């Protein structure tokens, strides 16, 4: 199960917006209504296909509580994509987006693709944040936007895959320095050596070439 690229993602946002549930829905295709508080960091992984290429997503799900913020910050490093999640039924989670965005921009590399996610779209009756507001925020800050439901799985695949597509496009455009692992991208065995500057056997080569799972 080798892959062409490995993208590292990070999921951020206030506590209780459904970050862990989104991850679980995407990697395991199941929903867990009661989820323990995430204290440290959780990892998930799934293989997807873009443009006929196998791409592995390695997803870091972080703790949303304010108290964990300083530790969470260190995980932005080396992420190629970020899902910034708020809860459409809780206005304050939307209000905190600016802080999250500042944090992300400050601690990540500048090319990181950020996708804004309004989660819990199945709870439309309790909605506090209009879809248009999310769209406007995304437009203003140059983000991709989508409303999802971790419960019904609506748009969950699309959220992760669209982010991957954008990262992939950036690679094609040569925006990402794919030889620098700190950008959150690793090259697997499948990658066609279109780029002459590919690492022959770098320090990270051992892990990359194994191509497991």
């Amino acid at each position: 199960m080798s892959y062409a690229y490995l993208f590292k993602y990070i999921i951020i946002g206030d506590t209780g917006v459904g970050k862990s549930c989104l991850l679980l829905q995407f990697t395991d295709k199941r929903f867990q209504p009661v989820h323990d508080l995430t204290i440290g960091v959780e990892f998930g992984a799934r293989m997807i296909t873009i443009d006929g290429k196998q791409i592995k997503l390695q997803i870091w799900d972080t703790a949303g509580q304010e108290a964990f913020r300083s530790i969470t910050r260190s995980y932005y490093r080396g992420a190629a994509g970020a899902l910034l999640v708020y809860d459409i039924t809780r206005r304050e989670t939307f209000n905190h987006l600016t802080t999250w965005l500042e944090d992300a921009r400050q601690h990540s590399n500048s090319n990181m693709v950020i996708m804004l996610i309004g989660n819990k779209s199945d709870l439309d009756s309790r909605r506090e944040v209009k879809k248009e507001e999310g769209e406007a925020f995304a437009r203003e800050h140059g983000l991709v936007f989508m409303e999802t439901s971790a419960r019904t799985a609506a748009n969950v695949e699309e959220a992760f895959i669209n982010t991957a597509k954008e990262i992939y496009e950036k690679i094609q455009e040569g925006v990402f320095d794919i030889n620098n692992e700190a950008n959150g991208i690793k090259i697997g065995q499948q990658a066609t050596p279109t780029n002459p500057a590919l690492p022959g056997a770098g320090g990270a080569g051992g892990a990359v070439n194994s191509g497991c799972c």
Partner: protein
Amino acid sequence: MLNNFKNRFISAIEPDLSSANLLPDKFPYGRPPFLQLLTADELRASANHNVRPIIVPRDLNLLPWGTGYAECINSGKSKWNEDQAAFCRQVLTDPEKKYPDLPYTYFGIFDGHAGYGAALAASYQFHDILHEMLVDCSELLLPRDEVNDNSKSHQNPTFPHPTYFQRRVSRDELIIGALESAFFHMDWLIAQDRNYYRDAGGCTACVTLFIDGKMYVANAGDSRAVLCQRRAGAGLAVSVMQSTADPNKIPTNPMDDVNSYPTAYSADHTPETERERLMNVARLKPQLMGQHYVAMEYAKRPHITDMGKRILCRQGTMKGWSYKTLTRNDLRIPVVNGEGKRSRLLGTLGVTRGFGDHDLLAINTGVQIKPFLTPHPDVRQRDLSQVVSIPDEHNEDGDYGILVMATDGLWDVSENDAVSRIVFQMLSRYPKEKHRYTMAAQELVARARGKINDSGHWRLADSKAAATVDDISVIVIPVYQYYKEHIEWTHNDTRELERRRRKAAEGNMAQEAVNDFNDIAAGEAHVVEERPNSQQQQVIAKGEQVIAVTKQEQERQKEDQHVLSESEETLVEKPNDNTSLQARLKTVTETLQQVQLEARAKATFEEKTVLSAEATSTVTTTTSANKQRNNRKGKGNKQ
């Protein structure tokens, strides 16, 4: 099957270790099971050297008492995290069910070097070995009466003169011995495997055993266990001050909202701290140094041009310095050189005790290092029953303290004081949360790891000094939670015993039961005493019949030594001390009459309420069956 697969997977992604050595791994690489990093993906994500994520258990209920754990990988010095941690809860049981069970809990932390094999093997196997060692002496550990403590009888001046070739062995010594032999056995096991499995490297070992209301810390190497205690409230402070042996240890920083102090429960074993032992090895077996080393230390590294000159040095185990005329032999490398964290044995190894390293050779010279190493741990213990402290909402751990066990990744950059302070700061920040001890562990790791700066160096957040680049693992154990569990368990246990005895005492088998009790008590006393006892022992147990029997016996043999058994408590009385015995007897009789009245009332009540008749009858049957056995055993012991 899965292991096989994992094994192959690890071999495939571990080219740096497998080059010359095609032997398989004994255990598949992984992180401690309670972290539940089960897939290769999770393993690999957790081993990200650029980000160094701090990993805490997903399910906080897997560790007992809310114990916290956190770990973080090195910054790239080895592909995998070579630290390991383990815990295990076990129960020692008497196959004859004569004595109540003895549960225990073990935590271990192992810091690997030159490969992950040794630490991994220790995390998989050490608790099994320890259990074996404890089971070995369980017949001596399981009977638990007050006399067992034997400090009382030990110091009893009227005790008969001890025989010269027989020593009394205390329960503490048995447990310490079990730990020590488990350490030696673990090292031996790794030695056995080296022909069949890939070179395991070596590891340090720091192990804590909670058993019978006590805490034992066994350590070999430079991991460390530190007990963090605090004083809260001025009123309490005075009493704690008095009970603390060294008040100088308490830091007085007005900036701290908590006043805490650490007590080390282990000593680091480095070439510097173990200089004397290493020099003795070198002195007694100079052939171990080959032609390359010298059991000498120089104030300044001598040069060939210094030949014939006087140089300042210390030879062998000397603590001070003296002059010596330099000869050609003195130009060899000192067995121990360097200071502090940079001290090295044979110029190679920075730690001098632990498991493994059987094939480790010194850099450049190829001299065998293992003969200088030992798996022998230092064991320190703390009797929690001696702690006088009532935990309250302001000081929920009381004087029992919080035990922090961590590998040198933490201690290299954190003083014990600071660790203690951080632990209590975090605990007061999260006063009620289930994950408060995990938060403390996470914070300790986060601080030791620091932050990466733009040039890729890890720096401490507060001082810009270098943070640790090593693997970091931290366990934070709330000791009082263990003790609470222990008390609860002992309480239930006592009640169960009482119930059994009461059941046996009532009914028509009274006289038979009395005889049984005499025998049981005599048998217990014998096991406890562990010495040949030619003197006849007498036993006073519950019930009027017992008292009657005892009185008759006592009249007959006034000069003999008497052992009184009052409920759970056995008292050793002086021979000839009839007055005190009489007095004792009187109180016992009174107490027993009372107890029996209560017991009868209770029994009637139980009958009325038809309290699980079946279960009760089973217990009675078991009890009488046990008694039959005990009867025989007791008699055997008597003769």
